[in-house]
């Protein structure tokens, strides 16, 4: 492994430096049928789960096959995607916001061979490489964050629970039987990279133990004032601590009852780790949406305060999700999103039909907005 230079000269970093050129121009990447008909599409239709046709004023048609995928993917896999797009789609493809891959062709005759090709490809372990689906009133791919594969603050993994959940919800990825579309998201800590706080079902990693304090090293590894400032709830203060050997060192103290387990202190100060096998796990939130269709966008609400991490397949989490999806599928009206359904039948009924326990943890007690989530009417259901 000899080092090979790109041409960059570390002694003269500004030599030939190119900066601020931004992303490539999207125009280079449009398939011809898209380029020709941009802004002139008349309507679309889902021909079967995962297969769409868009029809333009010109009469041109764009057929799209949508395939799911892990957003965590290797270059070998991307090259395979390219091979398929070269073979069937004139060398173009796109990704959706929810990490699906879309293969587009301009003629119906090219559709079946493309679909067959996608469906025939499997990984050595047996899973599908390119399951076709993710359209209409069903479940599409889960948007998620990094988890144990890359981040330093996660309270759960991301790719593992996503794979386990998509296996359980797989039929609904390829079937459009639900009352409306159902969006599932995962964030592995309360920072929630991505937008899980507005999902029909949000899987959220959560720590439940305050940071441990590595007093002996804290002052050496961290800027104590920065660690103190990092805490959103002002739970951390500087202090002096006597080590077992009698030596006095600068360190911090944490008011545990003020800690909301966000991990910001650990981000700042590696001597304050908080991850814990028993402490960490999953919160389930439901009923959010971002679309303005019929009702305004909504936040997801916490309906299960804690489920332990159960790698590799998180069975309690996936069972609970499945239970909620089934109750929703049975109870909601056509076009009704999960949150709209829960509001119509009332949250007391939601817990009943989903067979979920309502606990004190589910009553908001965090700052001002909490008051407005309590019941301020005499109306309720028995």
């Amino acid at each position: 492994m000899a080092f090979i230079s790109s041409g960059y000269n570390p002694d003269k970093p500004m030599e030939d430096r190119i900066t601020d050129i931004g992303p490539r121009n999207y125009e280079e990447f449009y398939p011809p049928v898209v380029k020709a008909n941009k802004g002139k599409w008349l309507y679309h239709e889902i021909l079967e789960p995962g297969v769409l046709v868009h029809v333009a004023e010109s009469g041109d048609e764009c057929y799209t096959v949508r395939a799911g995928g892990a957003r965590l993917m290797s270059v070998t896999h991307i090259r395979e995607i390219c091979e398929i797009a070269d073979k069937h789609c004139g060398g173009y493809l796109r990704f959706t916001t929810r990490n699906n891959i879309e293969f587009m062709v301009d003629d119906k005759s090219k559709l079946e061979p493309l679909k067959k090709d996608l469906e025939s490809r499997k990984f050595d372990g047996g899973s599908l490489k390119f399951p076709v689906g993710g359209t209409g009133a069903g479940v599409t791919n889960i948007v998620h964050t990094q988890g144990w594969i890359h981040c330093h603050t996660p309270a759960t993994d991301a790719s593992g629970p996503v794979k386990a959940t998509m296996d359980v919800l797989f039929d609904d990825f390829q079937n459009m039987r639900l009352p409306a579309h159902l969006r599932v998201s995962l964030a592995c800590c309360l920072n929630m990279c991505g937008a899980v706080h507005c999902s029909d079902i949000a899987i959220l990693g959560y720590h439940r133990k305050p940071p441990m304090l590595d007093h002996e090293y804290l002052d050496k590894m961290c800027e104590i004032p920065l660690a103190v400032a990092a805490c959103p709830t002002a739970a951390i203060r500087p202090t002096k601590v006597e080590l077992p050997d009698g030596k006095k060192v600068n360190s911090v103290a944490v008011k545990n009852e003020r800690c909301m387990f966000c991990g910001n202190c650990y981000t700042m100060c590696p001597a304050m780790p908080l991850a814990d096998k028993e402490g960490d796990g999953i919160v389930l939130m439901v009923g959010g949406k971002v679309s303005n269709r019929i009702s305004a966008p909504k936040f997801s609400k916490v309906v299960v305060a804690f489920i332990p991490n159960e790698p590799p397949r998180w069975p309690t989490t996936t069972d609970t999700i499945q239970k909620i999806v089934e109750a929703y599928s049975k109870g909601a009206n056509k076009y009704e999103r999960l949150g709209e359904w829960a509001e119509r039948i009332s949250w007391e009924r939601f817990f009943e039909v989903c067979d979920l326990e309502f606990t004190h943890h589910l009553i908001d007690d965090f700052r001002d907005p909490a008051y407005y989530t309590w019941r301020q009417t005499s109306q309720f259901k028995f």
Partner: protein
Amino acid sequence: MKHETPMLDQLETGPWPSFVSDIKQEAANRAKNEKNVDYQIPVDVCDDLLGVLELSFKHGRTHWKHGGIVGVFGYGGGVIGRYCDQPEEFSGVAHFHTMRVAQPAGKFYSTDYLKKICDLWDFRGSGITNMHGSTGDIIFLGTTTKQLEEIFYELTHNLNQDLGGSGSNLRTPADCIGKARCEYACFDTQHMCHTLTHEYQDELHRPAFPYKFKFKFDGCPNCCVASIARADMSFIGTWKDDIRIDQEAVQAYVGGELKPNGNAHAGRDWGAFDINKEVIDLCPTKCMWMDGKELKIDNKECTRCMHCINVMPRALRIGKETGCSILVGAKAPILDGAQMGTMLVPFIKAEEPYDEIKEVIESIWDYWMEEGKNRERLGELMKRQGFQKLLEMTGLKPDPRMVQEPRHNPYIFWKEEEVEGGFERDINEFRKYHQR
């Protein structure tokens, strides 16, 4: 394989694509090295990635440490530093930094471009990516510090491609597919996203903001990129005039020849389509009715929720006088709770050269950079100082469309200049008429 991974192996079965199988295939390909690549980071990086992940599955804890400062010269973002906390056992991932590569608007690609990206990342990185990260960038997952500048050099010199944003600056903007393939798009999301991304490259690469700032562009109120929930500034397409109706197509839906909602509900027998039950009664403003065989819409009362258009795309089309709304202040729950975007500009033209829109953007940035505290998102500043202040600083006129309802209390902070005669009065003059 270099490490035993009994727990991860259980994620290889089941129908959904297995990331474990994929990483294993990458590990095997690197070991074989059929193309004779002169790998610039350890060949067994993927083996060690699986090994350390297996250990996390076993321990129920991550094995990554916070990054420290790594990056490319002159940029304040685009690279996230990451080190393994078990570097002896997993030396291949001892340094495992992420690079954010700015994605093209709409996430369309040519295979020619993607293959070059793959070749570069194979050669100088782990070969593992995210297509894409939550913000929208292509994520290169895992390389060593020494390779960062090399990768940046190759990206800019050979691929005409820049890094994306991270840190306290403008994050890589993202958009929905819009006019490229969606009949609902009210403006060209790709054009606007791309143009503004290029316009604000300095803000994107050099942190000068109190905290992160995100733009997202949704072509219509269906909000496919969730701009209203996760962008400090969301641009959502809308229209001013009438929904275009094709009455024949309406009858085709009524008669069952056309399937509602583009056939999105085909997986269950919901019975015959009922335009009253499925469209007219669900219209949130109750502004539609049937007049014999004609569908009527009182467009002045329509709030453009998209429901009727979604259900009958061949009969109903968005209006022709299109533009966008601008909402500001959305953020995830940390810290004072989640915030949805708040309507700031109900309607603005979304056309080149976007001068009016840039004026709004820059007035917001000026305000936030002047008044925002360190690590205060725009939405939090709005909450702290109030909506009035935002109006004052942006020079926009108050409009009932900006609020859900008027205030619940009369505690108005009247300003002196708003009150006739001002605050200064003569107490002696007052006392002439009012004894002590």
